[in-house]
């Protein structure tokens, strides 16, 4: 029996563990399948992490190390090379590693912090052959940054997610030529600063409203045919262009890794593909919390750490049986606001609500209402799907409402 078991030793898992420890629960175990703590940050050797949290620009490993050092100093227990295979509703965790074999642990509370994975090329049904030389951007990042191998020299990237942008720069620095980054949508899903620093600074063309329609090559990729797409995202005849290349990188989205949440019967949101949670990041299953990229995909690790602290603290309250005055207020969205996290409020205390929009909108008002009356508004010059937004709701605001509505109006 453990008080708290945390699944995943990335930034989310480590922050949650530290927050729980500092709030009084010491009997904690982190289970991590990799041979190191740090999660995906281990392979993000570029800088830009921690601006928000520490006010400095750290590399991924530096950022992760700050947390790992703390975990070690506090003596929080962790097991590496340990894969969690199953979590039940009553918080029995089954895991395996080479030393303990297959083992089970019961926990009073569980924090799910398994991160996310990349959507693979296979999901896209792109016509053509299936040669070597096709990678997801994160896999290429692993080869280059962790293994010391270059997967190719002439690159076309599909998808302008942040990992794709970062890899465009990384491959260029390693002496490869990135011929184009094609993006299906009329806008990039990546951070504006990454487009500036990773593409523009290196003269790499970003082709918006473009996609790869055919892959060529027998053993190894020999080229791609790209085409412009119309508003329905269908290729436009006559706009085809052949680009010779030996490598294609896909950066077409991240998917929260929720296989274990499913085994625990946690309710998932079809929009985020992560758990449905309250302000404490507690899922539909009491005592099971979720945070970080497994809950919803974040663009900045700083927010991951922040969210994990919320979950860590709340897990302590749960273990100690502390109850706030309870309410049940679902938060609805209008589609232009794609989703919010949390999706519902269950306690009367101030809540920061994070959200993403579904398109690029300019000069907008974000409105929070109870269905009839506007409770709060916030003006923004520009909002984009690639950048997460947030609004803090004081508890006085929702004291007497049954439901909350988040909507977006263009001026």
């Amino acid at each position: 029996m453990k008080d708290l078991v945390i699944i995943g030793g990335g930034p989310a898992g480590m922050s949650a563990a530290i927050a729980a420890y500092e709030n009084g629960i010491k009997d904690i175990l982190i289970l991590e399948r990799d041979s190191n703590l740090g999660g995906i940050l281990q392979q993000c050797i570029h800088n830009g992490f921690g601006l928000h949290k520490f006010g400095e620009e750290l590399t991924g490993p530096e950022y992760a190390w700050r947390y790992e050092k703390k975990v070690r100093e506090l003596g929080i227990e962790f097991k590496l090379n340990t894969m969690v295979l199953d979590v039940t509703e009553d918080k029995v965790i089954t895991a395996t590693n080479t030393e303990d074999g297959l083992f089970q642990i019961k926990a009073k509370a569980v924090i799910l912090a398994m991160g996310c994975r990349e959507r693979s090329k296979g999901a896209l049904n792109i016509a053509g052959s299936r040669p070597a030389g096709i990678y997801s951007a994160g896999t290429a990042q692993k080869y280059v940054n962790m293994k010391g191998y270059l997967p190719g020299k002439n690159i076309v990237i599909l998808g302008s997610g942040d990992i794709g942008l970062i890899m465009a720069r990384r491959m260029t620095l390693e002496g490869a030529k990135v011929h184009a980054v094609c993006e299906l949508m009329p806008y990039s899903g990546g951070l504006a600063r990454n487009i500036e620093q990773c593409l523009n600074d290196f003269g790499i063309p970003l082709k918006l409203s473009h996609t790869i329609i055919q892959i060529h090559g027998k053993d190894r990729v020999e080229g791609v045919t790209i085409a412009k797409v119309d508003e329905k995202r269908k290729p436009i005849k006559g706009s085809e262009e052949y680009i010779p290349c030996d490598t294609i990188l896909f950066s077409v989205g991240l998917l929260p890794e929720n296989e274990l949440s499913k085994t625990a019967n946690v309710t998932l949101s079809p929009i985020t593909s992560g758990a449905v949670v309250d302000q404490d990041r507690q899922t539909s299953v009491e005592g099971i919390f979720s945070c970080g990229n497994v809950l919803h995909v974040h663009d900045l690790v700083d927010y991951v750490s922040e969210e994990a602290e919320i979950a860590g603290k709340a897990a302590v309250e749960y273990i100690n049986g502390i109850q706030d005055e309870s309410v049940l207020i679902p938060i609805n969205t209008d589609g232009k606001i794609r989703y919010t996290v949390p999706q519902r409020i269950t306690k009367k205390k101030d809540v920061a609500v994070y959200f993403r929009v579904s398109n690029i909108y300019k000069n907008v008002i974000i409105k929070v209402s109870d269905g009839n009356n506007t409770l709060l508004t916030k003006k923004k010059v520009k909002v984009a799907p690639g950048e997460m937004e947030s609004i803090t709701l004081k508890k006085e605001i929702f004291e007497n409402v049954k439901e909350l509505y988040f909507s977006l109006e263009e001026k």
Partner: protein
Amino acid sequence: MYDVTVIGAGVVGGLVARALSKYKLNICILESENDVAMGASKANSAIVHAGFDAKAGTLKAKLNVRGNQMMEEVCKELGVKYKNNGSLVVGFSEEDRAVLGELLERGKANNVEGLRIIEKDELHQMEPNLSDDIICALYAPTGGIVCPYTLTISAVGNAMDNGAELKCNFKVTDIEETENGYRVSSENDSVTTRYIINCAGIYSDEIAKMIGDNSFDIHPRRGEYILLDRENEQIFSHTIFRTPSKMGKGILITPTVHNNLLLGPTSYDMTDKDDKDTTAVGFEAILNSTKETAKSVPINKTITSFCGLRSVGSTGDFIINSPKKGFINVAGIESPGLSSSPAIAEYIEEMLKEDGLELILKPEYNPTRKPYYAFHEASAEEKNAIIKENPAYGRIVCRCEGITEGEIVDAIRRNPQPRDLDGVKRRTRAQMGRCQGGFCGPYVIEILSKELDIPYENITKFGGESLINVEITKGGQSQ
């Protein structure tokens, strides 16, 4: 000098070699690719057909029904996944019903057991996710599904365990007659042999031409598929065929033995025997047909798409004959070739016996082979026992399919040895899940590199020039 040389390590060549390996014979299998099961045997519908399609009296009809009867036992011996899930040919109209009636009669003439026409109510109880527009079906309880590439791999492996030799990267380019047999050559190697069994799939006509047999041609017919992710609850348990029409057998929906859902194949006649491209037109055809057949199919669960080439022979039937002493063609083995494969092997055994080849049973012959170990299917006790025995089974490498390092190492050490990423994939399912190797690929390369003593950067996806990494980075060093 070999007694028998099998050209082509597909399911047919594999099972022929295995059938012959029970006798005191020197057997060699020649394969042009870097691994076995690289042709039609890895990219097909994986259906063990009941046998109602082919016209009575044809080799196709006879060998299909016999192969169907043999398949379960062969799979049990070889440790290959097989499931007798039953097939349904669904009809949308009275015209379809008439065709189903003909198929029923044809099936009876071919001695297919248990065939019957079922009506809407029963049908929708069996398969609630079928479209409401479907009014009846031909039910074939003997229809099944099998894992075609593990069948091929295990057949070749079992033949090798019983003494047969496999030579990969041996593309036969020339055959010369010698005093007591043949000399079979590739660009840089050659073997001599008394008998040749030509199981070269789509290239079997070219092999036949090497000994002057121009009696048939093979042309490729493209078949594309979309594969959906594994689900805990299958939305279809039977194999669902459309009623055949002038346009062909149509696009089916079937569970696989691994609980994925397979949609396809398309059907386009081609000329280029190397063109395994998928097409946008093909994807559309698959999606449209699927929408007609099923109420709903989770297309957003697509994990990959692929294409196989049917070996369409110019005679309309399987071409199994001996145009010259010591040379046997096993050509034009299009569908139901997989279903027929164990029966084809038996048939070849008979032909050789009749030809006077002395077949003396080997006392040490072992027809069985352990299945590839599947950690995720084992019980908790079994898991603990195997981790204690070999800790590498405690380390999960492929997170999507739950495959351990132990399984991968074990697969690399067995016959026939995989030498590339795809080879490990077909044997263990590592890289076959929803992330398609994005996560475990780099680790599988590490294991292959260590086990085979090949530098990391020289590991390929499927042999030839299919390198994964092209060079060491500025700061990197070879592992």
